């Protein structure tokens, strides 16, 4: 067993999920130490969330959001490409610190049907009058 596996589970995590060809979802949780760093203004209140193509490491999208939002939707890079997200904090000295890195996902290819699904029964029936 490695030393890593002997550590208690960490609370500093980021995940990347596919929503659609138009959007991926990045969300994160921070443990006590990093939360404290934001609360005591060691870090600026906004984090930078970057979406990077895993194949050539090129930056696809960068967006800024408050650290305690814990989530953001981003437009993925070119369809079919694998990407991952990273969350950066801005330090007092103006530098950036990479806090978290997510799993990798493949951005879906959009259907030429223009996103019109051919049907979803449960939702349709729930919405018919309800």
């Amino acid at each position: 067993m490695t030393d890593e596996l002997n550590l208690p589970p960490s609370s500093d995590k980021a995940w990347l999920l596919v929503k659609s060809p138009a959007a991926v979802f990045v969300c994160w949780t921070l443990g006590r130490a990093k939360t404290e760093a934001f609360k005591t203004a060691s870090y600026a209140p906004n984090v930078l969330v970057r979406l990077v193509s895993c194949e050539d490491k090129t930056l696809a999208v960068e967006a800024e959001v408050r650290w305690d939002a814990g989530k953001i939707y981003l437009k993925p890079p070119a369809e079919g490409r694998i990407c991952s997200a990273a969350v950066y904090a801005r330090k007092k000295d103006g530098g950036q610190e990479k806090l978290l890195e997510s799993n990798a996902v493949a951005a879906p290819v959009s259907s030429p049907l223009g996103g019109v699904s051919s049907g979803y029964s449960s939702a349709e029936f729930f919405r018919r009058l309800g």
Partner: protein
Amino acid sequence: MSSKGSLLFLLHAHLPYVNHPEHADFLEENWFFEGVVETYIPLISMLESLVKDGIRPGIAVSISPTLGAMLENETLEGKLARYIKTRLELIDKELVRVENDPALLKIVRLYARLYEEAAGIIHTYSGDLITPLKQLQHAGHIEILTTSATHSILPLLARPEALRAQVAAAADDYMDRFNTKAAGFWLPECAYDPRLQTWLKLSGFEYIFTESHAVEFSEAAPRNGVYSAYRTPNGINVFARDAESSKEVWSAKFGYPGDPAYREFYRDLGYDADYDYIKPYLSEDGKRRPLGLKYHRITGDVDLAGKLIYDPDEAQRAAERHAADFLERRMRQVEEIHSSKGIKPVIVGCYDAELFGHWWFEGPTFLECVLRKIRQDRLPLQFVTPSEYLNSAQEPPELNPQISSWGEKGYFDPWLNEKNDFVYPEVLAVTDKMIETANRFRNHDLSLLAARALNQAAREVLLAQSSDWPFLLYIGSHAQYAAARVEGHVAGAARLLAEVLEKKIDEKALAGLEKKNNIFPRLDFRLFASVSKF
């Protein structure tokens, strides 16, 4: 007559795991009681009736592990018996109340037959509704599939270990329930991503179903469209849903279920009857709620107050007419595909089982008419199960399906949006904790108590991952309950994992959770361990 093509019907039966033994009466448990009386028993009865008449249904049915567990749960069985008994009491009162109104009397008698049939079938099988399904499969009349352990949207699980746990737990559950290996895996909501191939293969599954655009827009354009099976590079067979035949049955707006003659779902005696009269049949809080006795027809585009009285005979005729129309359309479709592509197509229709009977009251009648008419009219079509088709067809061409689902807009929007995305950090975090803890303890010689705690934590994590909770939050139905379920399972798992790490397990609390969330009795927490670490 030799067939020009095949119809492959799959009914996907699923309900979220709702079991509250701590309450005598619990609102959301009614989903199960309504499903049993209005869908599962009418379908079992219909299938048995066809077999009795020498007609082999030849359809596929997927039964989610959560529904399977509820069908085997003795506490729910007792509550179901009480539910049916009180409905029959109410129906007896209704028979007296409407005795001078022939139109209403006809409808009340219909419900009397429905609930008496439910009571009869439950009695015949001593409360175990898995038995008739098992028998139908054993005799080759139907093919039963499973789906992911708790109906999780698999592409929304970030870690491969979580995918493996959902898939492998389902395979084990099926083996325990049906005493045989499952060949087919229903992807919840047809949600597919290529990572799944590995785990499906490792758990021994042979085929899956996807939405049509998973196949139609794959890199190599499929020559046969969605009208034949395909095979992924690692050997999983893929059936894609046919949009045309699906829409006719699916759509409340464009499809058969919206016919004015059919029963109106949303107008119910629970809201219409005098309050004092109906009060004994409402829940403990005394709030009006649907009681399953619905006396009106869809009528047309009018509000609920303007709905006309239901006529079962007219609805029966509509179901027969729709069955004939459905088959005529399939015949034309098969002819067109046969002449344009030179193949004997397989038309794949996948539907939520609960559409038939619960939402679309006449759905089982429609389905029975379709199955009988093919035989009676000697139509050149045949129903095939997925395994029959694969055994008789040529080697399926190779194809890599695209990421997709059958949900609104074709991807994962209904399960991941501003209304429900708050659940994901919690669920993903506790899943990660489960994986890390499983890796840590997988080779430990654990005490029985610690192993019980870790196994229950694994159950809680699986239950937190159900697709039902984000979906209910999205549509705003039972949203508070859905949010509480996620929170409860996440908190339960996190507490158990912490207790194991701290070696301070609260045995009483553990026993309480084991009693309440008593799904997957044989589950081993090591299913969450990283495969490469074994």
